[in-house]
């Protein structure tokens, strides 16, 4: 009995070992498939090219056609018309009709996704066109249609009650099998308008631990691995069988301060906080890449939003102390600042779903102590930041904020620095000028008209510091030399699997 079992194991070992490497492209990443609703894990299906949006973005952030081959806006800027490709087919063989696309978008509009932030009056189909009518002009609309929650699914994806029961998309790959939350197997859909993918089968595995992902790359068990930890990157770079590609992505780790609290209501206090931070030290030690020290809120990857001539944020402890004195704080007996009998002692809330946040928080604790600010670090769940923003009890939070939720950061700015601030943006900070600028940006499409407005918005954020940038982020992708054609997409819209080939 035992011998039989052993033989089975051994045979299994030999057989799977040979066949698995023959043709399947093995991909590993940290994202689990928890539920198949597009608003939940649409990004897995859009990045792995199972489902498509009407519009997509190239690695430079430029909007390019996807399911819609072109789009236009009426003179009054209220009607947008997206013309679908004639040759587009869903995986069940039915054509991608304007009705199906409109129905998918209507569903996205009513759910939890970015579309609910667009002033949409109506979505209808007219021939091959999907027509979106707006209540007021909104220039960033096509950028919102890049978001994964707006993927277009076939009518056969939904059950009678409108719930998604399977993903029937229109991309180069279709779902062969899905074992939530960890495994997704894909194969050539044979129906893609863009042609046949070079590799016919793809297997995706969700691997939560970064170390395990690194070992999968090193042992040759995965051909393409996403989101490597900084500590593994150096080691992987040394490996002759692997290629490491790194891109700075539009995600910034910021200190979200409560500008209505006695600690941060003066701009001098926020500037002092910024001067007290040793960003280069943090990025060198914790992130292993000093170039990630955030000198302003947006990283260079966000073209038109990164201003190279802006006075960079940096460390100046003496200036920090001066500014705090100007704001009325004086050192107490234990070195911690005081004002009217109140100690400068605040709780910094952060969360561990980004593993680097807690160590950064403790580094900040030590650095701010040097200027007389006492920080108590509290590590919780990511939902506590919005909760404490909501009830006004947040003092200071360390968060990781994505500025390319849609490829036009106007959407994120509109939320974060609009009246009342937002969960992940400003708190207790009310700036009429930036609100006016962002509102104007939201209706201006012409890039030359937008440029000075964008520049002024960034200047205000740099001067006023309603959120204090600490570090930028990077995306590290490791690929085996068995494959070629891997591209890093800093916006993480599409990983371009269909273009990957086996190396000769």
């Amino acid at each position, binding site marked *: 009995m*035992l011998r039989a*079992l052993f033989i*089975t*194991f051994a045979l*299994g*070992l030999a057989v*799977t*070992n040979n066949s698995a490497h023959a043709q399947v492209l093995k991909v*590993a990443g940290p994202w689990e498939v*928890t*539920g198949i*609703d597009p*608003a*939940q894990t649409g990004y897995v299906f859009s990045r792995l090219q199972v489902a498509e949006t009407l519009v997509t973005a190239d690695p430079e952030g430029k909007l390019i056609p996807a399911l819609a081959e072109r789009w236009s806006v009426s003179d009054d800027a209220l009607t947008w018309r997206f013309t679908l490709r004639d040759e587009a087919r869903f995986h069940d063989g039915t054509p991608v009709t304007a009705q199906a696309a409109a129905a998918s978008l209507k569903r996205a509009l009513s*759910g*939890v996704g970015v579309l*609910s*932030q667009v002033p949409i009056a109506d979505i209808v189909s007219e021939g091959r066109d999907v027509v979106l009518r707006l209540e007021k002009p909104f220039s960033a609309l096509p950028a919102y249609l890049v978001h994964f929650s707006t993927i277009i699914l076939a009518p056969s994806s939904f059950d009678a009650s409108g*719930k998604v029961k399977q993903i029937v998309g229109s991309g180069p790959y279709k779902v062969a099998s899905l*074992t*939530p*939350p*960890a*495994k997704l197997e894909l194969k050539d859909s044979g129906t893609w308008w863009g042609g046949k993918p070079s590799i016919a089968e793809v297997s995706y*595995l*969700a*691997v*939560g*631990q970064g*170390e*395990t*992902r690194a*070992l*999968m790359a*090193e*042992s*040759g*068990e995965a051909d393409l691995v996403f989101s490597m930890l900084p500590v593994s990157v150096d080691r992987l770079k040394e490996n002759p069988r692997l290629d490491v590609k790194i891109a700075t992505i539009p995600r910034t780790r910021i200190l979200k301060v409560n500008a209505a609290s006695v600690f941060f209501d003066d701009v001098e206090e926020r500037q002092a906080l910024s001067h007290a931070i040793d960003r280069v030290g943090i990025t060198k030690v914790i992130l292993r890449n000093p170039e990630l020290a955030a000198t302003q809120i947006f990283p260079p990857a966000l073209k038109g939003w990164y201003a190279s001539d802006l006075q960079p944020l940096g460390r100046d402890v003496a200036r920090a102390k001066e500014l705090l004195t100007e704001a009325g704080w004086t050192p107490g007996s234990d070195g911690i600042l005081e004002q009217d009998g109140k100690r400068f002692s605040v709780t910094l809330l952060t*969360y561990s*779903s980004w593993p680097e946040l807690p160590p950064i928080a403790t580094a900040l604790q030590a650095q701010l102590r040097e200027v007389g600010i006492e920080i108590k670090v509290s590590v*919780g*769940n*990511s*939902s*506590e*930041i*919005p*909760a404490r*923003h*909501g009830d006004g009890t947040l003092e200071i939070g360390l968060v*990781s904020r*994505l500025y390319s*939720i849609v490829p036009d950061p106007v959407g994120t700015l509109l*939320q974060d620095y609009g009246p009342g601030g*937002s*969960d*992940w943006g400003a708190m207790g900070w009310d700036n009429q000028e930036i609100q006016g600028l962002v509102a104007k940006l939201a209706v201006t499409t012409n890039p030359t008209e937008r440029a000075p407005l964008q520049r002024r918005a960034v200047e205000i954020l740099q001067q006023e510091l309603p959120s204090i940038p600490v570090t930028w982020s990077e995306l590290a992708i490791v690929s085996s030399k068995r494959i070629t054609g891997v591209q890093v997409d800093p916006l993480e819209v599409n990983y371009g699997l269909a273009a990957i080939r086996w190396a000769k």
Partner: protein
Amino acid sequence: MRNFLVARLMQAGIVAMVVGALCFLLMRVLPGDAAMRIAAGRYGPDARIAEAADKVRLELGLDRPVLLQFLEWLGGLLRLDLGHSLVTGAPVVDELQVQLGASVWLAASALLISLLIGPVIGIFSGLKPGGIADRTGLVGAVVFRAIPPFVLGLMLMLILSKQLGWLPPAGFGSPREILLPALTLALGLAAMSSRVTRNAVAAVAKTPYFAFARHKGLPEAIVVRRHGIRNAAIPVVSYLGLQAIYLVEGVVVVESLFAYPGIGHALVHAIVERDIPMVQGTALVMGLMFVAIAALVDAISLWLDPRFGRAA
């Protein structure tokens, strides 16, 4: 036998009630807003959580009276309906099938591998207490029990996956992928069972009937097989029941390290995301598993040593 089964079934029923009620209460008294947690679990931290949380609250009726929600769960349980996951929306039973199935395979493989290692070493160690085999076995047992499963798993990955390239470091679905996590658990289990076996064998080896078998000239292998194993097995089998607890503990860590979608992994996620039906379902299944394992251990002990039955 019928009394035995009835008693165990009643025990299972009580476990179900207690586990369900406790989970429900504990999840309720945890600080923080459940709707926020669920929204973060569903839509990820980049979403507009506060807004999503309002929709979640409305959709799931989280503001209804607590007692009503608990009674609903209890009613569902009586109809063998564990409800739907608040995060994925899938029936809890469906999720448990995948995850429990995976975990049972993992635990069973680990137990099997550990039985191939632990008791064998234990028998050799116990036959000559204080000998080389015994002392080496002790050192091995101390080392493997002392290393946390997480570290042991990483070490095995480094050696067997990275250096030798024999086994994949993560994944599931084929026998190749179960071997590493199973081995990680098995080494910890074997560390303990080898010592228990060693003591049992040493005790049996000292008995007059064992000595008599040797005196009458039976070959050592036959002595051990006829008079040693069955007698020494009684404490080992009782101990296997306790090992189930080590397995459940270890499984949580090992599953997340090896990206193995088991019940431990599911429970941790469900707690973080405040997915009450999933927590209740998972805890319930785990509780019932303990009852089942205890029953099985008792049954095997009874078969190994009929005196227990007569005494009872």
